[in-house]
């Protein structure tokens, strides 16, 4: 089965833009393709006129610190993230979330940029990027700019950028500071390659024994990824105690309204799991913030 007619591998951003322009909306960006090709196959329509693979553009494949910001190119694969000591120390939750995406083959090919551009409400990488308060650099209608990560999501599967026209270039976020830590956990059916039932990423900062700031993302809990404002507001200023974590878990169950997906989980089960996940993820993040240790957990080979 033929999925495309032409496959291009540009080596610069300008070249990629020129190709998209050349095809006038008939070419699509591919960055790993572990979702895109499945979709193309399922559509069973005419082969796509052209695919533009951005993973050979050097600028989009780097992981680095620049101007006191961590930068990750949109073409960086999940496994490159998993193997990065810089990210293990500064974005533990991102390493953990990228480490459970798909199986080894998918993680070798699939990219963080692809995960975000696909705009699913429960992309594992996304959940962590939201907790990290990341920004995405895009070229939208020819204009290059940074946008908050949540702005990338316009609806389920609906991205701010049009992948026949625009480009997602890089992500950036602040490195981990003193008393700061992150964690990611997810509930999934008992096998490695299914979609998650629920994912949760937490970023927090401790001042002594007090949680002074936090960011919490739980997905899917709506049509797009979201921060749980009520939970964050409650946490800030609370002692980093078991009691606080317990209360937070209960609060999360109260304020979030997950929906039933016929094949994956009922709303009841998801609501039950919000409590479990919040408790487990917060406990881990607090431990990390207290000890300064940041060893990613549950990451696949």
């Amino acid at each position, binding site marked *: 089965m033929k999925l495309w007619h032409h496959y291009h591998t540009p080596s610069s951003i300008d070249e990629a833009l020129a190709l998209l322009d050349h095809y006038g909306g008939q070419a699509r960006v591919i960055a790993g393709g572990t979702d895109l090709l499945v979709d193309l196959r399922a559509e*069973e329509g005419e082969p796509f006129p052209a695919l533009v693979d951005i993973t050979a553009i050097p600028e989009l494949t780097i992981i680095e610190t620049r101007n006191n910001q961590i930068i990750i190119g949109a073409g960086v694969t999940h496994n490159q993230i998993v193997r990065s000591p810089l990210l293990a120390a500064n974005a533990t939750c991102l390493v953990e979330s990228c480490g459970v995406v798909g*199986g080894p083959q998918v993680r070798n090919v699939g990219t963080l940029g692809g995960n975000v551009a696909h705009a699913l409400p429960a992309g594992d990488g996304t959940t962590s990027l939201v907790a990290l308060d990341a920004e995405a650099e895009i070229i939208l209608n020819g204009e290059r700019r940074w946008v908050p990560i949540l702005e990338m999501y316009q609806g389920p599967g609906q991205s701010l950028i049009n992948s026949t026209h625009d480009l997602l270039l890089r992500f950036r976020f602040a490195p981990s500071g003193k008393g700061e830590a992150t964690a990611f956990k997810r*509930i999934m*059916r*008992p*096998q*490695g*390659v*299914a*979609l998650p*039932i629920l994912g949760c990423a937490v970023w927090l900062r401790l001042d002594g024994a007090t949680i002074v700031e936090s960011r919490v993302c739980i997905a899917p809990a709506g049509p797009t990824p979201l921060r749980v404002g009520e939970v964050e507001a409650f946490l800030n200023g609370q002692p980093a105690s078991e009691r606080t974590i*317990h209360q937070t*878990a*209960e609060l999360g*169950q109260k304020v979030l309204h997950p929906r039933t997906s*016929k*094949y*994956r*989980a*009922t709303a*009841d*089960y998801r609501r*039950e*799991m919000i*409590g*479990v996940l919040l*408790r487990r993820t917060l406990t881990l993040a607090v431990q990390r913030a207290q000890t300064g240790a940041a060893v990613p957990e549950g990451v*696949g080979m």
Partner: protein
Amino acid sequence: MAKDKTFTVGHTVKRIDAVGKVTGEAVYPGDVSMEGQLWMKLRFSDRVHARVVAIDTTQAAALPGVVAVFTAKDVPNNEYGLTMLDQPVLCGPGSNSIIPGADVVRCYMDCVAVVVAETEAAAAEAVQLVDVTYEDLPAVFDAEAAMAEGAPRLHADHPNNVLCHYRIRKGDLAAGWTQADVVVEGEYYTGYQEHAYLQPEAGIGYIDDAGRVTVIVAGQWVHEDQEQIYHALGLPADQVRVIYPAIGGAFGGREDMSVQIVLALAAWKLRRPVKIQWSREESILYHHKRHPVRIRAKWGATRDGRVVAAEAIVIGDAGAYNYTTNKVMGNANLMATGPYEIPNIHVDTYGVYTNNIPCGAFRGFGGPQGAFAAEGQMNKLAEALGIDPVEIRMRNALQEGSLLSVGTPLPPGVSIPQVIEACARESFWKKGDIGWSRPQHPQPDNPALRRGVGFAAAFKNVGFSFGAPEQSWATVELYGQTEIEEVVVRHAGAEVGQGTHTVMIQMAAEAAGVPFAKVRLIGQDTAETLNSGSVSASRMTFMAGNAIKGAAEQALEKWRNEERPAVATYQYRPPATTPYDPETGKSEPNFAYGYVAEAVEVEVDIETGHIRLARVICADDVGQAVNPQLVQGQIEGAVVQAQGYAIMENLISQEGRILNPYLSTYLIPTILDVPDEVKSVILEYADPIGPWGARGMGEMPFLPLSPAIVAAVHDATGIWMDFIPLTPERVVAALREHGLGVI
């Protein structure tokens, strides 16, 4: 005669098909293409129960590239079915059919039209243009509701939709209850299971050089496929040929027809090659499933752990057609009281028509459902009496000469006590002065994780049961002059992935006294072989072995009499079996059995409901392991398939429609799910009539796993969960009901 022991029975020989399958060179049905071939697409029913009033094919036929559109009236004899001819090949008006109501669709997998076109795309487009007018009929989706008075009836000749009803009446049940000190009751539910073989249905039909309608396809019994085709087409048997290339798994799912008859029909009408390839979605939607079964059971035992009474009602959802329901439920009926000698028994088993997807053969064939209830009852009795689960089984296990529930002794070679003991010893148990016991199992530090251990046992028939005709042909040809240079074996038995062709060659080499490398097999082609019976019922090693052994002995006799080549054809017939007595169930159900026991360790996350299967110890009496590595492969494969059945595989059917026909939502085990350890304990207590003592074993490791897991979950949590699959949702619901895992 020179004998190379390293290449014969009892030794691990490399599979003859290993290299081709690993390198991708093996040819499967979908890989076969022919010059000038056409493509076929099927129009399945759009309604779950409806009369087809009219089919307008004008628009479809007019689409460029479309060569033909076939409907019911094009099928000479419009009925098929493995053990009952109760399903129309194509549903629609005006056909010649013995089925009352061949114009009625009874489920979504019924087929109403066949489109053949120059390209697959044209066929796919045209099949949607077939205009079908339906008149809806009331439908029923629950087996017990279908049995109620006034329920919509699917088949005119089956009142209350009861397809089959088997009774067992042994001893005096009332007296049994009087003797019982303890009585336990349970209601058990087992779900659907999809075969999920690697290779979706595909095939090609054409006219061969001899003018025969020929179908290259994957199945389990070439001669049965041939019979189904020649019946539907109204042709003499020798005008139809069926050939199997490499087959990508079967597990019972290829016993019934999928693309065979329609491919033959199109090739016969059009005199051109016609190809079809199903997608995974089509495969899941349009072949049968394992029966969902509900069992209500009540067992009583004396204080010292002797089971004295057992009662069960077994209700299986057959779906819209028989397939092999009458046989599957017959097996469930026998196995619902386990491998135990119980003096007083009542069992009533029903197979019931509904408008759900038809159910049929799947590894274990009613045994897993029966064992789920029987072993659950035995484990509950053990708990109620405070007797160890191994110990109570030893006190009740069938012995040589024991009477089965159906009032007759088992065939000689009963080894279930030895199998239970071996499994216990190789796993978590010790035998002391007061019998079998198990030390307390260590628990993890994390309080959310609970570990538990469970045990279950089972028996599985080898070969066709209850009076079904049973035989297998083989031909052995010895070539050479002074010594045998080549042995050619002709045997039709299907290599579905289990390794049977390798095993046949091993047995032929052993029988003829030549090295493995000197034997060549000609198989799975009706034009080249005689009827072998199906690859099912764990029968092929046993049946092919005896047939090949018989043929080889006769060929050797001819060889000694200087015949060159020395050729002998032999039909093996095992001891006869008899059907259930309609009132009492008295029968001689089977001529051979395999015996199995399993111990498992699970870890339950009581907060999320996830169950991790950590260890499985599986002891199997295989009589003689012809190829030990293949036996181990069958054990590990069956255990993992049963793990999916018990924990993960949740086929969702809503008003007869399967909602998750994808492997992304119907989850089968992957390498990340398999247990840390599956320990195969291969026991060899010879079957007196098995070839070299071999018993069949491909199914039996499947049977005890789900009840063993349920027992282990109970050990971990204190809760009996008598339903499978044990999805996290259901487990959490059960745990919370008992106050476990609450935040």
